[in-house]
Structure formats: C-alpha cells, structure tokens
C-alpha cells in the first residue's frame, strides 16, 4: 500500500451504514431476493478490530493490462469490438478523504450484452477479443482509471420483458472489512435505468443517481475514446476525539 510516511493509518470505527439509503434485503420486484433475504433483524455491532481492519493490496499485484479490458483478453494486435471508453474517478470516504490504495475489481458484458460465463445463454455473440474483467488500485489521491468498451443492455428472466441497463459491476476494498462494497455503475442518459427492477431496489432517487456515471467530455480522448466519470464513496471512519479509548471513539 502506498502510504505517506507521516500519515498513520486510521483505526477508528466506521460510521454506521445508512440502511435506508441502501436497498432493503427483500425487494420482490427483483424476484431472486424473495428467498435470499434474511427475515430477522440484523444484529448491530459497533466495529471491533475484526471489522475496522481489512486486507490491503499492493500495486505489485496489478499487471500492465489489468485496467485495459480492450486488450487484456485480446489476441496480439487485436482489440475488443465496441464503443471505446475510459472510466475514471476517485474513491473517497464519507468525510471526503481519498481512500488511497483501494483495490477495485470490475466486470461486465461485451458490447452486445453477452457475458463470458458458462451459465449465460443470451443469443448475442461472444467477442473473441473480450474477457470482461479488470482491476486497478487507487493512487494517493484516490484516483483510478480503466479502459473498456461500453457494455450492451441484456435481457434477463425476471419479469416477462426485463432488460438490464448497460452497467459495469464494481467490487471495492477500502481499508477495513466493514467498508467492503459491491455495486453497479450505469451510464448517464440511459432510459433503461429507470425501468430496471435491480436499480429500483434502491428506495431513494438521489441514491440511484449516485450510481450513474457522467459523460466527462473534458477527459474524452479525441479520435480514441470517450470518458465517463464515476466517483465512489466508502464508509467514513470516526475521528479519534478521545485518545484514551482502546480503538477509536
């Protein structure tokens, strides 16, 4: 992990999760949730060391093409088919601090909406030069970037005619295991977003909007790729207001 030498890691407990902002477990419009949602209340626990600590990954594990989905599965000299885009942004915590060294993993369908997965049966074709996975680690200011093709929408067996909007799945590691997050990124202006039962598991429109990447014209690379900006916010940590406590406040 890249850490400034004069910057001790934070050890405080995390802000409680606002579970009215996140989706509830039971969201019958998304049918699979019905039998997979716990029915009893969660047991709440203010963070102990088991949750305030977490794995942190070194830049050394990242290969040269890990953040380039256009090329990381392609045959030499070839590239994936689709709208070339750069997705970038920052990972911050709820206090607005950069989460340096955060590991991001992402996965997606190809330009036609087809995933490279044996359980996927959609009739749109695989792209022989597209795998669909990537990863990167944030720099000291929390910035990340990767290159890919814009994924297509695809149908799924939920309602009779449900289609997922174009999306990229993100998995994020902060510094504590309690910050662990998996989410999905959508694209500005996509009319499919507001029809999607998975998007609509989120109760608050403002929370949904937090998942929509904006077209970032200023960072578009002329004659190459358009850019989308997607910032991610992980849980904040309490400041250590009273130092005599064993772990944070």
């Amino acid at each position, binding site marked *: *992990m890249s850490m400034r030498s004069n910057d001790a890691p934070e050890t405080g407990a995390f*802000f*409680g999760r*606002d579970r009215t*902002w*996140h*989706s509830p*477990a039971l969201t019958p419009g*998304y049918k699979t*949730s019905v*039998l*997979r*949602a*716990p*029915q009893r209340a*969660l*047991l*709440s*626990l*203010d*963070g*102990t*060391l088991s*949750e305030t*600590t*977490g*794995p*942190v990954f070194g830049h050394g*594990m990242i*290969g040269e*093409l*890990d953040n380039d989905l256009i090329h*990381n599965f392609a045959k030499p000299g070839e590239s994936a088919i689709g709208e070339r885009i750069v997705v970038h942004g920052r990972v911050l*915590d709820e206090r607005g601090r950069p989460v340096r060294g955060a590991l991001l*993993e*992402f*996965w997606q369908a190809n330009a036609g909406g087809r*995933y490279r*997965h*044996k359980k996927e049966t959609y009739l749109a074709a695989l792209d022989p030069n597209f*795998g669909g996975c990537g990863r990167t680690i944030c720099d000291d200011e929390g910035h990340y970037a990767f290159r890919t093709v814009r994924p297509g929408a695809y149908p799924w067996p939920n309602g009779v005619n449900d289609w997922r909007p174009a999306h990229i*799945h993100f*998995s*994020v590691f902060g*510094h*504590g*295991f309690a910050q*662990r*997050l*998996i*989410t*999905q990124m959508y694209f500005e202006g996509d009319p499919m977003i507001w029809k999607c039962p998975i998007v609509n*598991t989120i109760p608050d429109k403002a*929370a949904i909007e*937090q*998942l929509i990447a904006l077209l970032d014209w200023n960072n578009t690379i002329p004659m190459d790729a358009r850019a989308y900006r997607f910032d991610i*916010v992980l849980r*904040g940590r309490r400041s250590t207001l009273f130092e005599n406590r*064993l*772990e944070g406040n």
Partner: protein
Amino acid sequence: MLLSLDALKETPSQTAGPYVHIGLMPNSCGIEGVYADDLGSVMVNDKTLGARIAISGRIFDGAQTPVRDAVLEIWQADHTGLYNSPSERRGTADPNFTGWGRSATAAEDGVFRFETIKPGRVPFKDGRMMAPHITVWIVARGINIGLHTRLYFPEEAEANAVDPLLLRIEHRARVETMIATRTGQDYTFDIHLQGPSETVFLDI
C-alpha cells in the same frame, strides 16, 4: 438553517449478480490469461504458523435449496490474534498469512471451501477477549447488500460463553447458527439465509 455537516453518502450497494465470478475469480470460470491467479484463492504457504484447518459448507435459501452462485470472503486474525492489515497497531501479524480468502459456492453442489489456520483471540473494544472467530461476508444474485456474519469454533465453548458478540444474541437458540461443526481439522459451516435456522447476520 442548520449548519451542514457536509458528509458524503456511501455509494449504494447493488447485487453482485450471477456472473460475479467473471470479476472476482476469472480463472475459475474459464477466463484465463488475464490474471496469473484468482485473488484470495490461497491464504497460507509452507511457513504459515498455526494449526491448519479447512472450512467448508453451503448456503441455503428460504426453500432450503443450496445457493450455487454465491461468493464468500473471510477475514481473520493470525494464530496469535493479529490482523495482517495496516490498521493493526498492536504488532506485526504473521507475514506468511494473508488473513483474507475468497471462495465461490460450486455450481454443482453449492459447496465452498477455505484452507486456512485457526485464529487467535482478539480483544473487543473494552478489552475483553473475543472468542476465536472468522468474519464472513457473502454476496450473490438476489442479495442486494453483502451479508456479514461470523464463524465461531465448537471446541471453544468456554470462550464462546463469554464472547461479547455472542452474549448479545437475545434469542439464545440462535447462537448455534454462528458455531461451526468439527470433524478433526475440518469444520463445516452451513449458512441459512432465511427460515427457522436463519443464520445471525450482522450490521457492522
């Protein structure tokens, strides 16, 4: 107008979906040549200290059917109770133990498996020692936000009896949902997402 505290909101969670393996363990689902290894598939090496154990189990849905498309991650202390994390300030954990592992439930039978070591005890916030435990996080299709729970060890009855978290479970019959069963060095930890045997899940 009230003073704004100006805190950002956490990015909302979304389900990992049925194809989570593409991103988290591409080699295991046939996307080879992108990463050398799947992250989290190995937690120990020849030099890791502590008692070797294996943990396996299944996740059942509300119809008692095994969930065959979940991914689990575990996070635990080393054999002395230290975490391999920059925010561990009590000492230096065993460098040959990652403390973190990732496993999918198999598409055929829904079984997940970790090869790890038995963790040492870690203090609670007030200094009381918690019983040895492993933090477990589950994502899958149909799960909108990752579920946290803990695995405790059946041979630690004395420590479990005074564990600060287990003591907080009001319905005592539910305590056993967090305790694995043991055969030698193999532990079985079945997780029930809903129904009469529902596992205790945590808001941490």
